[in-house]
């Protein structure tokens, strides 16, 4: 109680100095929190955008497919697998996919195109595929059309195709035959030529299985989970449940390894920025405590002369700084919460939009979470606590007579 009283009154003793030190700590806390909020918000947004637009949260392939994708590395989506996926509590939806490539022709125009075959109904439950259609209709709405396709914007420009045009596809069948068929353009996908969708052709699973002579076989099942943060554990769990050595279940972090590694490197860069902020706070606190301790040297000598245990003096310096940092964080909590909340709704526009891992981003947003608010709080208080150790020890171990003489 006496320690608290002394610490509190000492804080009030030099109000402007305490205020300056407190404001520095509060500023650093708010900066740290906002920086963490933007970091988490942006990465969360990136992950959501990537997984929502294409990769899903977990994918199932035939073993080795991810390392070396091939038409021939396929598997049969059995009723048992379907049931296991549907019954899994973490799985919100799943969709099968086939990937290949083909030469496409329209009159005298031709190009090579990447093909992605989907179950249109299921795909719309897992990704934002339906929203990617810029003109025409989605595959489920092309009633009565044989072999409907969605054509990427870039491909459309290359072969100068329009809605309703018939395209000739030539490719390789899984049985070694030459695959060829006619497909009808029912929609155009991709907002700009740089979008991943703009370089692809989407078709129905049945069309692709027929065209590529795959029978009931597919290349991939993409899963959407209740919570993307559980992707790793869900993948491990599903691998066990499927109990099939030929199948490989991987979370989005593995499927989109390049993106994930780039994100991690970026996050580490942010931690360095945050460490620099904390270092500055530490220096401010250190200078403030050293000035206080130097100024009160005579007083500490007096306290020791009166019989005060050195540990009491040590404690009072530590308590004083912890009190100031806690108070700063408490006030800062209001600002960091408000600012993070504001930026989580409004975001900051990026002009021009930035491509990251093949996905286009037009704004960065913040995030309000316990992590964003409390990790910087704990860090700020801990830095003040640790930095106060040296001056506190110096005061506690002072020789009373020398301290009182001012030596």
């Amino acid at each position: 109680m006496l320690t608290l009283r002394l610490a509190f009154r000492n804080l009030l003793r030099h109000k402007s100095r305490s205020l300056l030190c407190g404001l520095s700590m509060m500023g650093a806390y708010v900066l740290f929190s906002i920086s963490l909020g933007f970091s988490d918000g942006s990465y969360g947004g990136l992950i959501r955008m990537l997984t929502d637009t294409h990769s899903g949260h977990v994918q199932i392939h035939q073993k080795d497919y991810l390392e070396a994708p091939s038409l021939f590395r396929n598997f049969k989506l059995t009723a048992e697998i379907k049931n296991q996926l549907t019954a899994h509590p973490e799985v919100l939806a799943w969709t099968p996919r086939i990937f290949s490539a083909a030469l496409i022709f329209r009159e005298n125009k031709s190009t090579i195109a990447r093909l992605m075959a989907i179950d249109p109904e299921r795909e719309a439950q897992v990704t934002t595929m339906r929203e990617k259609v810029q003109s025409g209709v989605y595959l489920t709405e092309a009633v009565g059309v044989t072999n409907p396709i969605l054509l990427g914007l870039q491909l459309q420009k290359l072969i100068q195709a329009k809605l309703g045009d018939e395209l000739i596809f030539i490719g390789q069948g899984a049985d070694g035959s030459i695959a060829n068929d006619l497909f009808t353009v029912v929609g155009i996908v991709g907002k700009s030529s740089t979008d991943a969708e703009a370089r692809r052709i989407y078709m129905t699973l049945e069309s692709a299985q027929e065209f590529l002579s795959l029978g009931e076989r597919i290349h991939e099942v993409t899963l959407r989970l209740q919570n993307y943060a559980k992707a790793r554990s869900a993948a491990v769990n599903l691998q066990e449940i499927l109990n099939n050595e030929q199948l490989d279940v991987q979370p989005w972090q593995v499927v989109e390894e390049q993106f994930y590694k780039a994100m991690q490197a970026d996050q580490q860069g942010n931690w360095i920025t945050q460490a620099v902020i904390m270092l500055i706070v530490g220096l401010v606190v250190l200078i403030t405590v050293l000035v206080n301790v130097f100024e009160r040297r005579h007083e500490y000598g007096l306290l020791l002369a009166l019989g005060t245990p050195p540990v009491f003096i040590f404690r009072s310096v530590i308590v004083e700084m912890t009190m100031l940092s806690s108070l700063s964080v408490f006030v800062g909590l209001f600002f960091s919460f408000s600012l993070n909340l504001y930026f989580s709704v409004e975001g900051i526009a990026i002009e021009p939009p930035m491509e990251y891992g093949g996905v286009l981003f037009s704004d960065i947003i913040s995030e309000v979470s316990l992590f964003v608010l409390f990790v910087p709080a704990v860090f700020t208080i801990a830095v003040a606590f640790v930095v106060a150790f040296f001056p506190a020890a110096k005061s506690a171990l002072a020789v009373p007579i020398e301290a009182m003489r001012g030596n």
Partner: protein
Amino acid sequence: MAEIVIKTKNLDKSFGSGETEIHALRDVNLEIMRGDFAAIVGPSGSGKTTLLNILCGLDTVSSGEIQVSGRSLQSMSGSELAKFRREHIGLVFQAYNLIPVLTVLENIEYVMLLQNVPSAERKERVRKFLTEVGLEGKENRFPAELSGGQQQRVAIARAMVSHPDIILADEPTANLDSATGAQLLEMMRRFNEELNMTFVFSTHDPQIMERSKRMVTLTDGRIVSDELK
């Protein structure tokens, strides 16, 4: 026979070394009895304050022995000395040296708080000493709101309230006008008489010399006379 509360034997204290070495105290042999009201006098630089600092364990000796309340101060560590001072010695300084962020009441009870004296007893003793030093009604004031004389009263109350074996006072009246000094001295003398408290002063003040029961004179760090009055 009176109990010896302070005993020094062949005490030497020097500062610096070689050509710059200064002998502050030389071969000091002194015995202070319980109930003494002793003044250590001498010109400036004679070693009075050094001797007082050594007697309370704030300073160390170069050679010789010192015992206070039957215990050798030389064998104690910094924290043991702090504990010893807390329990056995009351200090009064020339510059009052109150704790500026504590009120009068808190300054007086400070040592008792460190001693873990129960709250009720603490309050009772503080109230008694506030009355004794004539500062009733001023218990919630901070030192900066008091006059020099009032601050020294608080310092005396702080030194005595925990009932130490010895009160060591370094020039306690030097910063006070003679009337206030005489008043405080009278008060200390009364405590000495009534409670048999031991007081040792270092002083230049003729008033203290006049009222002291014993006068020890230091010159160039040596005791040149020790008179009982």
